[in-house]
């Protein structure tokens, strides 16, 4: 019990001196009270990552054009991958003894792509009803659900994304609900379980959704049936979460004061929402229309949390200045538009216009096809921007694929750029990756070679595809 108190004190940053004082007061106040019950604490990581990198060998890739993912381009560059990390980047690196050297003449090296928006595993192929595990469409606020409990690691889509140079991704619940549930960030290295894929130490995300989807789904199921109903729903959820957070804070305060309070009843949904209010969980909000995004910025201020990103942001170009002011990323397609009213104003220059305004632009997929070609999506956005007179380089455009998504997911310390000390999540492209004809030739995750295009015998094959027509084919 003393240890628990101590842990709690350290955890909440209360000094030991203060603790002693508090304990003293407690004793004085409660001298007739019973001894304290054990402190109730919430385990914030009940499904811990069991990810293990592939075995790796020290590898030096030489003679390439290198995009570092944070805006730099280097010619005749080399990069050294050692013990799962990037240990050197430059033009004059010699191979350590026993290192494997790959001559990359004419080829390009980039950071592995980070997709901020995937539904692989929660909407797995084959596309059967049995695999529709992405939307808990039972009530509009389902903050209690966690995407990782739906993910099927045998979804063949993971391996396809790997061939497109994707090394990490965020997997989100769908957008049917105002609050859809927790997302999870994974390494794109499928294994037997989802825990095996979880990106070590990545923070959780929370999927929320604006606009048409919630009102369409719940319009005849008790609401919300309008956009104003949507906003009332978010606000009520935050009000409830604030109350829940206060109950727990009071419990800990009372406990620290030496009292013997009864712990509040745990509530999974409010655990997650309170996690957002505490700044531990990052909000990723599906929102298309400019006006709705700005309403959500005000809701964010009203309840004092941060939106990490708007997802899709089809009209982000209309309010790119406000996104920059409020430090909110926008994760976008290059050219999807028109499939619903809130996507009707989609334009090809959305991504470069967000970049131009100084806001954080991300190229995302939300698609098991798009995730295989995110480099091409960035290329289209770049050239559309250039034709509109927006001066952006290829090196800058690659930040949309690695550094910016990594920042929005809270994993930029570990991945998203080719800088010494970062995870060796690296792609060797057969040519300039802004070309349709370029292909990811070698894909490294934590220094392990996860995909080697020229060695078909080495390709990963999901359980589902074993023994089926086309097993192990060029996919």
């Amino acid at each position: 019990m003393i240890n628990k108190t101590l842990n709690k004190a350290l955890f909440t940053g209360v000094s030991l001196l203060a603790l002693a004082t508090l304990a003293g007061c407690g004793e004085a106040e409660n001298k007739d009270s019973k001894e304290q019950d054990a402190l109730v604490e919430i385990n914030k990581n009940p499904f811990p990552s069991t990810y293990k990198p592939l075995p790796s060998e020290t590898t030096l890739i030489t003679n390439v054009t290198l995009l570092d993912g944070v805006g730099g381009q280097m010619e005749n560059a080399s990069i050294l991958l050692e013990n799962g990390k990037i240990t050197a980047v430059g033009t004059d690196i010699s191979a350590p003894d026993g290192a494997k050297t790959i001559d990359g003449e004419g080829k390009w090296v980039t950071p592995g792509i980070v997709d901020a928006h995937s539904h692989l595993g929660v909407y797995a192929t084959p596309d059967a009803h049995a695999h529709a595990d992405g939307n808990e469409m039972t009530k509009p606020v389902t903050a209690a659900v966690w995407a990782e409990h739906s993910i099927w690691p045998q979804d063949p889509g993971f391996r396809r994304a790997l061939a497109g140079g994707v090394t990490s991704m965020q997997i989100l619940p769908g957008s049917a609900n105002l609050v859809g549930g927790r997302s999870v960030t994974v390494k794109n290295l499928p294994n037997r379980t989802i825990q095996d894929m979880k990106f070590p130490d990545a923070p959780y995300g929370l999927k929320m959704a604006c606009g048409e989807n919630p009102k369409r789904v719940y319009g005849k199921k008790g609401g919300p049936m309008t956009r104003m109903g949507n906003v009332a729903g978010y606000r009520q959820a935050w009000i409830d979460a604030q109350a829940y957070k206060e109950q727990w804070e009071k419990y800990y305060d009372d406990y620290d004061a030496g009292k013997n309070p009864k712990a509040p009843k745990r509530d999974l949904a409010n655990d997650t929402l309170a996690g957002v209010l505490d700044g531990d969980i990052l909000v990723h909000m599906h929102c298309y229309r400019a006006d709705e995004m700005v309403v959500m910025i005000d809701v964010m201020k009203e309840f004092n949390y941060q939106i990490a990103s708007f997802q899709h942001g089809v009209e982000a170009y209309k309010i790119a200045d406000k996104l920059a002011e409020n430090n909110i990323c926008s994760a976008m397609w290059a050219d999807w538009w028109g499939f619903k009213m809130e996507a009707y104003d989609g334009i090809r220059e959305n991504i470069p216009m967000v970049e131009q305004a100084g806001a954080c632009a991300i190229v995302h997929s939300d698609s098991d096809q798009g995730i295989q070609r995110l480099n091409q999506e960035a290329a289209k956005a770049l050239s559309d921007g250039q034709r509109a007179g927006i001066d952006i380089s290829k090196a800058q455009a690659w930040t949309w694929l690695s550094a910016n998504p990594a920042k929005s997911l809270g994993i930029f310390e570990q991945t998203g750029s080719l800088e010494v000390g970062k995870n060796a999540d690296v792609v060797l492209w057969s040519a300039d990756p802004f070309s349709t004809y370029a292909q990811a030739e070698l894909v490294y995750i934590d220094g392990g070679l996860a995909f080697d295009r020229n060695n078909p015998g080495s390709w990963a094959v999901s359980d589902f595809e074993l023994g089926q027509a086309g097993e192990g084919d060029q996919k």
Partner: protein
Amino acid sequence: MNKTLIASIIAAGLTVSTGAMAEKIAIVGGKVHTMTSTGTLNNATVLIEDNKISKVGKDITVSGDYRVIDAKGKVVTPGLMGAFTSLGLVEVPSYGSGVDANAGKATISAALDASYAITPDTSLRNITRIEGFTSVASAVSQTATMFKGQGAIVTLGNDETPVTKARAFMVVDVSEHGAEKAGGSRAALWVELRDALNQAEYAKNIRFTPQTEWHGMPVADVKALIPVLKGEMPLLVIAHRATDIRQVIALKKEFSALDITLVGAAEGWRVADDIGKAGFSVILNPESNLPYSFEQNAATLANAGRLNEAGVNVAIGMNTHNIRLATQNAGNAVANGLPYQAGLAALTSSVAKIYGLEDSHGSLKAGMTADVVVWSGDPLEVMHAPTNVIINGEEVKLESRQTKLRDRYLSLKSDKPVQYTRP
């Protein structure tokens, strides 16, 4: 235009363009992909006169009455053809409005006629054409039966009546989705489809009147199937599974006049040689490489290349709002084994061949309709785009609702509300 020509155009089911008589245009100095046996010509010239291509070649003298488009360093292709779309039939499909692509409650099936529903005022027209697509094949996409009815060929030029060929093709779905419409099983679907064709065989000699005794399928539907049966109207068959494609080949043996093109054909590569021997064309999405259902287990990025290798005429482009991305689709097919010229053909001459339009569309030679695009570079490269688009001899502005939105918001610094800025 003389009366005989007009009569012959009407007889062929074509609509006379209402566009103004276009100027004489010379596209000079480009790398010209003719999509004919002439191949690709560097530093060549394309002349346009009276809405037609009048000359293509090198060392052509351009007289002073031509407006010259300088294509030096650029690439010239025939206008691209959207192979399989619902363009003109749908503005906003999901939870939206302006939708004629869904005929799920119609009581007719094969007789559905897209040509009556197509509008030139769709925002998709300009959005699509500024990306180099000058015409599309368009049909209803959602129906209550395996048939999706009769589709039309549509120009994306400034025509008030954009349908250039009504009732140009018939679509039938024999995939898992088609089977669902036929009661849930291919065991029902194939019997029903044969029955429909047999009824058409019987009906082709009947001159229907309201008094005709007929106890078969709705008269409009059986009449619509007669030209299909005779091979006068191309039949597009949506199929994915190798064994379903074999069933289509067997059908062709029974109804030998059918002019069949497979659509989708995710597992086409497994029966590529048989498809080639049967003489079918294929319209596909070369990027579709996932087992979306068990009928697509063997889907692969190599599909287009392998079918081409077997001698199959391959067209690329299955989308509506983003049919413009068929260039990227074709580029990815090339990256995965389709020869480059076949990749370009998949957007031009191969499409024209499927719809029997090879004498007017899909290639650059004298006498063809003047649908021509000048590109900043390789059309299949994602970073290149058209610089000039000419449709039926008329150069169209590279402007759409989307470019106007872009121009309105390109600068966010304005004292007035945005609605006062009209680009």
